Each structure stands twice: as C-alpha cells, then as structure tokens.
C-alpha cells in the first residue's frame, strides 16, 4: 500500500470545556449539551450519537440551565440573567430576554411545554408564557431568601418544587404562593456544614419530591406534609444533578466524586405491589464532578467537569443487544478544529478564543516501518491570534497556499493575509468586510487559494475572489426557497469547478462555480453527513454519514458510482459499522486516484477501491505487518480497507504530499492533566 512519513503532532493543546447541562428531548431523541464556555451542542441519539449542531459560546454567557419546550424549542439561561432561545434551523440565537432577577441558576419547562420557569439569584421564581415566537413574562412567585438553584414541575403542572440553600419550597402555580417549606439537614458526615445547597429537585406525580444536595444526600420528601420520608447518604461530596425517567420508575444522580447512581422503584418483595426506591447501580465513568445527568428511555446520560459525555444504555431497556447497547463516551467535537496548508506545511489550530499557527518540522533521514526519524528542524509556533470580543470562534481555515487565514465568530468575520519573508511572518487584516459576511458556519478556500467560500448562518453560500490584499464578492447562492437550513459542511473540487455543501438533514447540494448554478442535489439520506470531499480528476463526491456509511457520487454523471453501488450492495464490514466516532475528514492521494483517505477519532483508513471489498468473514484489521508471508496469502487477505489505529485520539489527518502524512493526536492524559484535580478518594482505611 505504501510507506509514509508521518508528522505526529501532539502539541495541539486543546482542552474541551466541561459539560454544565444536558437536556434530553424524547420526541426527537436529541440531546442538548451546554458547556462551561457557553457552547450548546445538539446530539442526535438516533443518528449514532452524532453531534449535528452547535451554537458557539460567549464569554459572558455561562449557561446554568438548558431545557426543551413544546415544538422542540430549546431554551437556555445563565448567569448573565438572560433567557436565550436557539434557532435550531438557522443555528443562531433567536432572541435573548433579560429576566431581571440577577443571574439565573435554574430553569424548567412545564409538563405541557407551554410555560417556562426560571429561578434567579435574588430568590425569585419567574413564570414565562411561551408564545409561538417569543416568551412573555407572566408573574413572579413568592420571593425566597436565597438563590433558587433547582426547579421541578409536578407532572400535573399545578405545583413546583424549588431547591434553594438549606431548604426546598413547594409553590402552588395558580396562586404563586409557597405551600410547603422543607428544611434540609446541614449535617454532613456528622459535622455541621455551613450551608446545604439543594443542587437538584425532582417532583414526582405522587407528590414525592426528591432532592440532591451538597451534603451528599438524596432525600425523598412528602410534599403534602413537608416531611422527610427517606434519606440516602450516597457520597462524601456534593450530589450535583438528578434526572427522572418519564415513567417515574427510575432516576439517576451524579456526584462530585464522579459517580453516577441509578435508583429504581422496585417491589419490596417479588410479588408485592408495594414498591420502594432502591439504589441499584453505581457507575464510575467520570473522574470529576458530574454536573449534569439526563435519563432517556433507554440510557443514562451524564456529563461533567471531565468533559466527557457518557451515554450508558440500560441493559434491561435495550431490546436488541447490538452495538447500540454499548457504553458511549464522547469527548471530542464531531467537527474539525484543524486545517492545514499543504504547500507550506502549516497547521492552523482553532481554540475557543484564539488560533495557533504552527509550521511542521522536517527530516532528511529515512527509515523503515515504526522508526522515529531524527528531526533536522523542529516544529515552530508561528502565530498566536487572539480573537477580539467575547465570542467564541465558530470556524477557521487556512488557505492551501498558506497566505490567508479566515475565521468567524457569531457576529464578525475576519480575514487575514499572511506574508512570509524568510523566517519572519507578517499578518495583515483585510478590512472592510462586506456586511453580509457577518457570521460563518464554515469557511473553505479553493485549492488554488484564489477563492473563498463561506457558508453563512442564513443558509446562503458566498463566493469571494481573493486578490492580493483585497477581495471581491463574486456570487451568493441563496438557499432553496422555503428552507432556512444552514450549511455546515463544504467541499470544493481541486479543479475549482464544483462546490458541495451539506446541511444537517437535507441532502448535499452541488453547485457549479463556473456558471454559478446549482448543479444537482444528492438524494438525502436518513443520517446526517459527517464529512464531504471531492476527488481530484474524477470529481467524485465522497460523503460519510453518521451511521458509518460512505457513498461515492459522481458529480459529472449525477449518479452514484459503480464502486459505491457495489459496496452498498455488499454492505460494509460489521466492524466498520461498529465504530463509534464519526468520520470527520476525507482526503485523496494526488497520485493514486483509487485511494480515499478518511479518519475518525480512533483510526485512519485508506480505502483502495481497486482491491476486493471485505466481507464479514474477512479479517478486517490486520495490525501485524506481514513478515515472511508469501505474496499469495497477502493477496488473498488483502482487501480495500487499510486501517491503522496507531494514532489516537486522532483529531486530524491529511496527506501533505504523496509520501507524507500529518496526524494530530490529543492524548486523553494530556487533557486530564490540565483539568483541576479530582476529589481524592481514599482507597484504604476509613
């Protein structure tokens, strides 16, 4: 297959933000996740847990609460005191509204999905009516002494429970008055702690209120009498989150020790109807605080400071014991944060608030498989570009020639011209960007670096011609009439004639850049597109979907290629389909048109279309290099998928030239080393 020199890059110092909230939507089977940097991500649990959308964060917008309302509307609230509604089609913020109660700590949507409650720093609980296009303040409930940290509606919508500091209040929704106040014991392991923070409450339909607090307790209260019914001391540290299943037969809590406990309502004896909440399963998938949990019908979902999103299917709820029943741990974003200039061997790293430009090193030595070659020149950190303003970077790109860098935040688009003079590098911002170029979801340069393609969040695609130090707007492809879906992925053919663009659900559109027309639309597929690329010479569009299917579509012929039909007919190898991270990048070998290079977080693969496809009996991964095997055996076992799992977690991989690869790894240990230390637990003694 070939020998490559691989630039193994580990200096991408990326640390994902900790997870603050998760909210599960049963109807669409989607999960909204907010992170400490304010980013909100939408995962489609039906589509192999693919992160299909994201809303960039903002420095001042620490999200404290996240919830879904009727009609799959997503709201968040945070410490800046604002309630935000997100536009899931256009991928921007629909509006923000100040609740005028100081920082908002908690939010809950009524069981019918038509009312929104927020709990504020000043102790007020505010009720908002959700109107079709906005929310409208309705009234305040009785003001409490201290901040409202958690809220939960009674399933009938008549009462709510609000967790504050040291007590839980139950409100009557109609009158807005407190009907019950339940004081929580401050005692913590026999020692009186100063305050007991109610991190979470859950109101069950039988009137039971479950609370979790900073003293490590899970408590059951009778809301009618205000009495403590049961107490479980489950942790030596805070219990920070709780989520109840829709059937109210199980719930999940997360602790600051990284443990997630599953509680279930089980019969006291095998045949009695009397049921009792029992702590059934502890899970330790996290090292740090579990700040948020969610309970889908079939899985427990948890996330926290250690940045992992863990989806733990409940074995008793999973009907088919297939690969969906496996534990999922999602750490890295399902999109590219790295772009590469092949000509100058540059890597552009995207962080939340800055960009880094690195030049790869070089070597003159050669070696055999597995050797580490001595460097004649080390990698250089060329540039550290900080964003202006509090907004996070949405996307960034470096041109193949290395002389242009573009990036975008929610409200501004930046384009820079880079000049190289020997070892010096100068940066010049291209000013006076046109008004329509405000926010981009995806940026792409053409192969010759003469054109810039920008997918804006209005669904339109802009083509800009780049000149020395200036630019010219060439054309804008307006979205199909009636759709507002934004394009998140772009691909341009190396000859510069074709542009492919994909949204989150509809099919891939292919535009002819020469005559600036829509050329064709690839039939839409059930699963979202995770990566796109157009092959040189043949202009075949290769599309990877979140269900691990890969299609090859001939743009000139407007149909799937023969190879694509063959592999669809035969089906992919089961091990290929069982991978649990999506393919995030596809590239091609300039000299070998039959090769497709693609990678996910745990492997990279070169598909050689000339070789026979593997069937389920074939040995899929052949990790051992053949030593003295005869050519016959080698030919017999050879199949189209050449897979390497040496580099992981793999965030980016591309071919720099025929014989050189660049692989950007981000070892998990390096991320953990940058997190705050977890709560130390003694293993021995008491």
């Amino acid at each position, binding site marked *: *297959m*070939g*020998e*490559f*020199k*691989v*630039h*193994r*890059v*580990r*200096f991408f110092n990326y640390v994902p933000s900790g997870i603050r909230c998760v909210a599960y939507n049963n109807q669409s089977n989607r999960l909204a996740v907010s992170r400490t940097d304010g980013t909100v991500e939408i995962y489609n649990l039906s589509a192999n847990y693919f992160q299909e959308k994201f809303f960039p964060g903002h420095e001042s917008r620490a999200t404290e609460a996240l919830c879904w309302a009727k009609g799959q509307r997503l709201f968040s609230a945070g410490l800046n005191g604002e309630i935000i509604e997100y536009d899931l089609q256009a991928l921007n913020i629909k509006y923000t509204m100040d609740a005028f109660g100081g920082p908002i700590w908690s939010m809950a949507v009524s069981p019918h999905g038509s009312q929104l409650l927020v709990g504020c720093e000043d102790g007020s609980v505010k009720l908002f009516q959700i109107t079709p296009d906005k929310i409208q303040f309705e009234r305040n409930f009785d003001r409490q002494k201290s901040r409202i940290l958690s809220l939960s509606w009674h399933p009938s919508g008549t009462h709510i429970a609000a967790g504050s500091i040291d007590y839980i209040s139950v409100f009557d929704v109609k009158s807005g008055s407190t009907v019950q106040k339940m004081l929580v014991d401050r005692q913590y392991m026999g020692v009186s702690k100063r305050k007991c923070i109610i991190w979470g409450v859950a109101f069950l339909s039988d009137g039971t209120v479950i609370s979790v607090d900073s003293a490590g307790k899970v408590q059951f209260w009778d809301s009618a009498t205000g009495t403590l019914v049961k107490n479980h001391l489950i942790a030596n540290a805070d219990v920070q989150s709780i989520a109840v299943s829709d059937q109210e037969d199980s719930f999940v809590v997360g602790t600051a020790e990284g443990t997630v406990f599953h509680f279930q309502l089980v019969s006291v*004896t095998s045949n009695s109807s009397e049921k009792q909440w029992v702590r059934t399963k502890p899970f330790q998938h996290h090292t740090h605080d579990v700040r948020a949990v969610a309970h889908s019908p079939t899985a427990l979902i948890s996330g926290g400071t250690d940045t992992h999103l863990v989806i733990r299917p409940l074995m008793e709820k999973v009907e088919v014991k297939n690969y969906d029943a496996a534990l999922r741990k999602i750490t890295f974003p399902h999109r590219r944060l790295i772009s590469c200039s092949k000509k100058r061997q540059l890597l552009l790293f995207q962080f939340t608030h800055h960009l880094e430009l690195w030049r*790869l*090193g*070089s*070597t003159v030595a*050669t*070696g*055999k*498989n*597995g*050797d*580490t*070659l001595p*460097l004649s020149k*080390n*990698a250089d950190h060329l540039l550290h570009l900080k964003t202006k303003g509090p907004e996070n970077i949405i996307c960034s790109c470096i041109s193949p020639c290395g002389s242009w860098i573009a990036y975008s935040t929610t409200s501004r688009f930046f384009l820079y011209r880079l000049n190289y003079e020997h070892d010096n590098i100068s940066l010049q911002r291209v000013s006076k960007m046109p008004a329509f170029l405000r926010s981009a979801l995806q940026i792409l340069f053409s192969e010759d670096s003469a054109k810039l393609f920008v997918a804006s969040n209005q669904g339109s695609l802009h083509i800009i011609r780049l000149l020395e130090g200036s630019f010219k707007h060439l054309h804008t492809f307006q979205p199909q009439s009636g759709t507002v879906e934004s394009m998140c992925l772009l691909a341009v053919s190396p000859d510069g004639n074709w542009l492919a663009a994909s949204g989150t659900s509809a099919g891939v559109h292919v535009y002819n850049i020469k005559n600036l027309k829509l050329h064709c639309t690839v039939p839409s597929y059930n699963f979202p597109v995770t990566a796109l690329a157009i092959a040189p010479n043949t202009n075949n569009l290769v599309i990877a979907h979140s269900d691990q299917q890969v299609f090859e579509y001939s743009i000139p012929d407007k149909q799937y290629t023969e190879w694509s039909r063959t592999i669809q007919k035969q089906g992919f190898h089961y091990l290929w389909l069982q991978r649990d991270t999506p393919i995030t990048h596809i590239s091609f070998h300039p000299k070998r048109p039959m090769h497709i290079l693609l990678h996910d977080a745990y492997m990279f693969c*070169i598909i050689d279309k000339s070789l026979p496809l593997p069937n389920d009996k074939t040995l899929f991964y*052949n990790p051992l*290099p*053949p030593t003295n095997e005869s050519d016959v055996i*080698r030919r017999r076992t*050879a199949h189209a998928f*050449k897979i*390497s799992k*040496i580099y992981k977690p793999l965030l980016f991989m591309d071919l720099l030239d025929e014989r050189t*690869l660049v692989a950007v790894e981000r*070892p998990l*240990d*390096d991320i953990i080393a940058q997190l705050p230390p977890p709560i130390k637990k*003694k*293993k*021995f*003694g008491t």
Partner: protein
Amino acid sequence: MAALEEGFTLSAVPLGAGPHGLLGVEQSDRPDQFLVTDGGRTVILYKVSDQKPLGSWSVKQGQVITCPAVCNFQTGEYIVVHDNKVLRIWSNEDVNLDKVFKATLSAEVYRIHSIQGTEPLVLFKEGAVRGLEALLAEPQQKIETVISDEEVIKWTKFFMVFRHPVLIFITEKHRNYFAYVQMFNSCTLSKYTLLLGHEEKSVIQRFTASVDRKVISLMSLSSDGCIYKSLIPIHPNDPEKNQRVVRSLLLKTVVSGNVRNGVALTVLDQDHIAVLGPPLPASKECVSIWNTKFQTLQTSKELPQGTSGQLWYYGENLFMLHGKFLTVIPYKCEVSSLAGALGKLKHSQDPGTQTVPHFVNWETSRGYGFGSQNSEQSKRILRRRKIEVSVQPPPSKQLLSTIKKDSEKRIVEELCKFLASKQTPDFHTIIGDIVLELLGRHKVEPSFYPRNALMQLIRTHVLSYSLCPGLMEVALEKTDVQMLQLCLQQFPDIPESVTCACLKIFLSISDDSLQEAEINMESVSDYIDSVQEEKMEEQTEILHNGFNPEEENCDNCDRELNKKPQDTAEETTSCPVIPKRAALLRNAILHSAYSEMFLLPHLKDIPAQHVTLFLQYLYFLYLKCSENATMTLPGLHPPTLNQIMDWICLLLDANFTVVVMIPEAKRLLLSLYKFVKSQICICSELNKIEVSFRELQKLNQEKNNRELYSIEVLELF
C-alpha cells in the same frame, strides 16, 4: 407515641360530687365495667364502652360512704365501707344495700384494696392491714396501731410483685412524710422517711407509684409543680431500721406551682405519666401525658370546666371529673419497635424456611371478605371433609375456648389439629390471639405454663414480637433459654431492651442448667470441637490479619503479649464458653436485628465479667473467621464478620470504662488493641503504597508520552 383520644362523659347525672369530687373509681371483675363511688351515698357500676350504668346502690339517708367500693375479684362481690366502720358486701343481684351482708369493725377503715389474683386487703386508719377473710372471720378483732399519733395516711397503693402482694402507704406528720411498705409473704413492714432534699418548704400534694422487679418508684407531685421520684426497695436490707429515701427531680414544673387543688398524677407505664392540673398559673386545667425518659410532653387535653384533682387509670382509660361529669379519655401508647424500622434488619432469610411476614398484612385480612370466601367455599364443596369443617364453628374459636379451661395436653392436641387445618389469610393474627390467650391464662394461674404449645406456635414462623408482646417477658421470667433462642431466631422485631435481657440471661445462666436445656446447636459444635483439637501454631500468624507482630515497633503491650506466647495461643484457640452457650449467643444474639442507639444503654447494664466473657467469645469468633480466606465461619448461617465486629464495638462502647478496670479483661483488650493498631498500620501502609504507585504511574506515563512532535515512518499493508 402516646396519644389521648376523644373523651366522653360517662353519666349525664351530676354526681353528688361537691368540692371533694368522687371517692373513687375501681375496676370490677369484668373488663370494661367500673365501680364509681361518689362522695355521698351512692355506688354506680358503669359499662364504659356503652357509656351507661348497669347498677346503682345507695346507703340509707344519714349514712355516708367513707371508702370507695371495690370488687372482690375472687368472689365477684362488691365491698364498701360506710360510716368508717361498717363493711357491706353485696353482689350484682342485690338491690338494697340495707339488706346485704354487714360487718361492723372495731377500727376505722382507710381503704380497701383489691386487685386481680389476691384477696382484698383492708387498710385501717391506724396503719394496720388485714386480709378480708381474716377480718370477716372475726370482725370485732382488735386492730393494732402502727403509725404514731398525728400521723395521717395520705395515700396508698397495692401491688403484686412476683405474685406476692405488697402494700405501700404514705403518711404525713408535721410536714414530714413516711412511706410504709408491707410485704405479705414475709409479713414485714418497713418504714422509710422521705427526705425532701432542697425543696423542704414545698408540700407534697399527690403521689403515684409503679413497681419494677425490686423497687417501687414513688413519684410525688409537689406544690412547686415538679415531679420527684424516690426509689423504695421492696426487700429492705434491714427492715427494723428506719431508713431514709431521697427523692430526685423527675420532671420540672409540669403544673403551675402554688395550685392547692385540682392537681393529680398517675403512672401510665414505664415511661409515661399522666398529670392533671393547670400547666400555667392562669391557664385552664389540663390532662397531659409526659414521657419521663425523654422529658417531653407527649400530648395534652384542656379541661375547661375544671376538675376535682382526681385521676384514675385502668386498662386504657383515664377517668377524671370534668366539671360535674365523670369523663373517660382513652389513652393509647403504641409500642413502637424502632429496630424493625430503623435498625439493622435480620440477616438474610434462610432459603428453606417460610418467610416471616414482618407486619400484619391488613390488605389480605380485609380482602378476605365476601368474594374470596365464596371462592373458598366453592372449593370446599369438592371435599366433603372440608365442608364439615366449615359447618363447625371456626377452629380457632374452639381452640380459644379450649385454652380457657382445658389441660395443657388437651390444648396441644387441639393446637395440632388447628395447625394442620388450612391456613387462612389472617392466620398470623389468629396465632397471635392464641398466644395471648395462653399468656393470659398463665397470668391468672401461674402454674399453667404451656411451654410445648407455645414452642409449637412460635415454630409456625408467623409470629412476631408485636403480635404477642408478653411472650418473651414470660420466657425471660422463667429463664426458658430454649424458647428465648427460638423467639430470637423467629421474631423480626424484638426491641433492643428484650434482646439485651436475653443476652443477660444467656450469659448469666449457669452451665449446669444450660446442659439440661435443649438448645438448637445448629453447627456450632463442629467448629468448636475442631478448634479444641487443633494446634495453635498457625493461628498466631493469622491473628493479626497477616501482619506479623514481631516486625512492628515493639512497645509495651507487645512485650507483655510476647512474654507469654503460650498463654495467648491457648486463649485464642479454645472457645471461652461451653458449646451450648456459644450456640445461644451465636445463633440467637448475633443474628438479631438491632439499632445501636437503642441497644447501647441496655448493654451498659450487663455485669462486667459477663461482658468480658462475651467479648472473649466474640474475639474467638473473629479469630475463627480470619482463619480462612473467605473470612467466614463454618456451618450453616454463621454470623458474618461484620456482625461480630459490630458487637465487639458495641460492647466496648457501652462498657469500656468498666472493662478497662477488670484485670481478666486486660489481655483481651490488649489483643484487641493490637489488632486495631495493626489494621491502622496496614491501612497507612496501603495508602503509602498507593501514593508510590501513583508516582510510578506518572513516570510510566511520561515515558510513554513521547515528545510533542515527531516524524515517524508508517508502512501500511
């Protein structure tokens, strides 16, 4: 929790009460019927549940009843005294008191006492006491004077202590109080002077008393509104000598001070007393229930129309005069077994045995109404024999009537028949009733102790402590270790105090009497025997959980232990108790459910040498446990290591100050101390190792973690 229920008035007829109220309310021989004597001429018999009088008797005009009427439980007749000296005895059928039996006595009567199980006693104003029979045989006999001049009897009460009648009366002379305790089995009269302590000036207004096994606790309500308690021994050390009794404060200011009249108190049970009186100077009169153990007011009820300051308590009813009416307030104090709710539950159920229903299942009992009965009956049609059974009165009723009169042998026969018949949903409540009935008969005729029947009932696996609260008390009284063992094994809800009482008996019972008793040995013998044959060498090594004592920094205790290695080994290898006792302790006590908080105070009462013995045994069990890798004892249902450790900790917690003073226990404590120390050492060593491992791991990571940037060669095949 104690609670007062809604009260009701007994009679609408205003009693001739006057300012002094009633003379008294006394029990009659039938439950639920009470004799009420008013201050003038009338005695009325009331049925409380029906709230109506069943009979009324009056003395002639000009005569005055001077002492409340009582019932002679042995004959069912009523006795009253009028004009201080004239005794009248009549029965239900008599109409006119003038025509009934009359006896004129030579001295003035203070009170007639009558309680179940003994003949009535007559207490004369001069302090002499006579049995009724003896008195009637010679009414004009000379009555001696017991108390001195000017001494006046203020209050009196009659108890049965271990089936022996005991009478106590309090006299007053110049603000000094004396208590007289008359024992009838030994005919001794002891006199005690009640010392008032600091509250010399206060006047004692009311008394009440309860009796424990050996002491009478006399409670007195003083004019300062506080209740004081004095303990008077029943068996005095020196009956001749005039002894002094100090009183201690029991409850502070339960009624407002300076109230002359309208206060009263009565003991309800071990921990509860009822107090009548205004709680605050200005407030209305109240009846309140106080818990003396926790010093808390449990409940109270206002009596706005005032009372006469008299309070009687029989069965479950409090009687008092409210305004002009006699009011009955039912009082309930449910025995709550917290062990069942809070405490450590019983260890796992034996797989073979039937599970014990922990609580009465009211659902099924209620559901056993029409529908289920019909289906039951339709099934019965198929079997003729069953039809016959269903025609007969329910077998349980038949059995209950058998219990009332027949011999033990006959009862056992009937019981077998009953147990063989089909079990109904309310089976366990019926079994509970049967046990209560048996115990009731035992109470009346103490010679009747249907041990076999009781054992058989316990073995039905459906009984619990709360279903037959008296059973274990009786077994304790009889020191019936076999039954106690069985109860401990079967009952899920034994209060800690009873568990502890059992433990005391198990530890104190002599070896000889143990040998006679039939005790379920389960598998105790096999390992105790094996132990005694074994040699000790290997055990000293396991002794400290793999921690070799020699390697430790030797300190004093080590040296002392090492001085006599032979002894230590002996001590550890041989079981300190005989197998039967071991079986009792191990299989019954260690498995029982308990809650530390409630058990600890009772454990303190165990004598020190017994504590030591038990500790030795537990330590021995621990050593046996640590012999094998799984840390379990051999045999069926052994106590777990945790249970053993918990009991060691509990015993030490409760008795440490005592145990530490006992020379015999020194070695044991040292070895326990050493054991704990070695455990701490191990833990700290493990923690040290953990830290070093983490460092190693870090080093390892750094090694793996090659440079941030490298160029490598990769060949894909």
